[in-house]
């Protein structure tokens, strides 16, 4: 049982780390604020979610595991709101979205 938990925990941690890397690469490579927001959201949802779930599987007790899992929805709500607020503000001050490399 412990071995199974450890194994699934490791798989989740690895997947989470991969999403973190993907988000970072997205942030570095995407061309404008709107697309970079998109990369960021993947990290907050899947990257952090998988890492937290993976760690919760290894937690010493239930309270610890629940606390770890509580962090996830909090970050989800915060990241969705902040992403929306920044995108809206970008639109308000007329930042033009990227349309291709012709510019």
């Amino acid at each position, binding site marked *: 049982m412990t071995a199974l938990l450890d194994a699934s925990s*490791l798989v989740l941690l690895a997947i989470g*780390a991969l999403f973190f890397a993907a988000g970072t690469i997205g942030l570095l490579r995407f061309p404008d604020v709107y697309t970079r927001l998109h990369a960021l959201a993947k990290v907050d949802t899947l990257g*952090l979610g998988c*890492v937290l779930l993976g760690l919760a599987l290894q937690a010493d007790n239930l309270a610890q595991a629940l606390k770890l899992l509580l962090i996830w929805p*909090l*970050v989800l*709500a915060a990241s969705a*709101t902040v992403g929306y607020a920044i995108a809206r*503000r970008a639109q308000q001050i007329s*930042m033009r979205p990227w349309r291709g490399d012709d510019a």
Partner: protein
Amino acid sequence: MTTILSAIALFLIVNLLATLWRVARGPTAADRMLAALLFGSTGVALLALLARLQNDASLIDAALVLALLAAVGGLAFAERAWREIRDDDRAA
């Protein structure tokens, strides 16, 4: 297990430092702020990871606090600080 957790922590901090490139390049203030937000999320993950690695459950509380307040900086930026699009200078 400890080795693998350390490796993941190392991997995440390399990620973190890579995003510093976006902070440095911009070009707009929002791009830099996005990098700071990514920093926050990675920070939460790292604190939770360190809690396990160092066997210190109270670091989970720190991760929780950081997650709770992740919105404050971003909202302060969007609602208060970001007024105009400027390509900030590139000079270091």
